[in-house]
């Protein structure tokens, strides 16, 4: 049986950290990667209808360009924006590993000390773990990018 939650404002602050609100208001890498070799994937959150389109271009085995378009809540938009920053310049392998770490964090797993640094600003989204309905918002862009890399996006 679930517990009656308490908490109030602190919880809200923990969900909506300053970094998130900043990326929501001023999203980075919004737009569409065009041209030769660009791949795009569009996904929708069935629980709310939020839509996202992620497009990428690979160069020399790395994600050379990565952008997103879409409409959604602060969590989904901020997560997309943070994602583009975190994954640009990575190899697909690194991106898949990073995305696995990110999802684990949203499932409530604590991030090993050694990885906190590498996660960078993404850590700001760790508060989402306490709001199960919002986890889908936070993973939408990640599932889309995984698909552009040809990797399955389980649980989307």
């Amino acid at each position: 049986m679930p517990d009656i939650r308490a908490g109030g404002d602190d919880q809200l602050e923990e969900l909506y950290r300053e970094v998130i609100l900043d990326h929501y208001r001023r999203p980075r890498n919004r737009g569409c990667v065009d041209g030769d070799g660009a791949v795009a994937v569009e996904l929708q959150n069935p629980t709310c209808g939020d839509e996202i389109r992620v497009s990428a271009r690979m160069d020399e085995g790395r994600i050379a360009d990565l952008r997103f378009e879409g409409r959604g809540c602060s969590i989904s938009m901020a997560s997309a924006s943070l994602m583009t920053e975190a994954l640009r310049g990575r190899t697909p392998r690194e991106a898949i590993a990073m995305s696995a770490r990110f999802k684990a964090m949203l499932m409530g797993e604590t991030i090993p000390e050694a990885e906190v640094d590498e996660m960078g600003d993404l850590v700001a989204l760790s508060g989402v773990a306490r709001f199960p309905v919002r986890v889908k918002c936070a993973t939408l862009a990640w599932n889309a990018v995984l698909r552009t890399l040809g990797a399955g996006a389980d649980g989307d």
Partner: protein
Amino acid sequence: MAGSTAHGEALDVSSLRARFPILERRVHGRPLVYLDNAATTQKPVEVLEAEQGVYLRYNANVHRAIHALGEEATAAYEGARAQVAAFIGARDPRGIVFLRNATEALNLVAWAWGRRRLRAGDEIVLTPMEHHSNLVPWQMVARETGARLRFMALDERGALDPDALDAVLGPRTRVVAFTHCSNVLGTITPVAELCRRARAVGALTVVDAAQSVPHLPVDVEALGCDFLAFSGHKMYGPMGIGVLWGQPRRLEEMDPFLGGGEMILRVELEEATWNAIPYKFEAGTPNVPGAVGLAAAVAFLRAAGMEALAAHEAALTTYAMERLGTIPGVTIYGPPAPRGALVTFNVEGVHPHDLAQVLDQEGVAIRAGHHCAQPLMRRLGVVATARASFALYNTTAEVDALCGAIERAREFFHA
């Protein structure tokens, strides 16, 4: 419950509230303000006691039992059928089919009637504001049969003029299916007039009454429809029980939907013949406490008085629309009153998800999302909206709490 039955007498909201223990609950340290009633209502103790009463006194399988418990369960189950029939003005209780929810009821019509009778080129007329439950089954049936979907146009505010039906009605129109009250726009449709015009061309009429039966006096004979679907859980009854009302004549001419126990007359290894209505459509062990709980909800609503309830909710909705209208950046969707007991809106700069999250921290429960009406969302040019929906226990003080919380969300997001 305190007497407040007389026609026109005001609802005694505070003594009604006392029948709902959950309304005492606190959420995040604040009193619960439950404004998600179009999704599901809370249940009065009368309903909880009725359900428990079955389990404590005479729980048994119905119909085939020759023992006291089984006879009592059957009497209670059939008694519930008669009470629900009377509540919606159905003369013949055999028109009441107990199912899980409105969704199953609408599927039953689409599959058991539509799939067997529609031919390629036949037309099914809907509205663009249907809940997915009255849209997707018809899409599925259309795909299988080759029938086509046509949509009545709404006006710019989301109202439905009966002339919109004439514009799409044709010689191939076989089904006209539409909501009595939109769960997004609050639009009340002119059911009787739509049915009259649909009948004139020989089309079957199917009314999704999930959002009307809990809020307005509904009389199927006056509406003149062939089928009407609704859910117990949206009208203070238990989850897991819903109703399809059908004209007995229509039900009789239909083949069954699910096969199994209770719906048969005679079964050979290779074939079977069907039981009389409504049993033909109630395969397997029914939800007896669910039906008895629904009958208790009906009794509760009758005691409160549907006219008084409707007046209370109308006043509350008007108040909410006025108050919300004064908040900067708020857009309200749907036509002006008279309308359903809900307000769907958006706040500029605050996504509905984020709004709902902040409101939840204030104890205010609303719904955010597409409300199972994605095509309508697209038409409104949004991906999601926020919705506050009312029940007989809501108060103007709760509407004030809603508005205060919205102000707070605007601040939070600097909107």
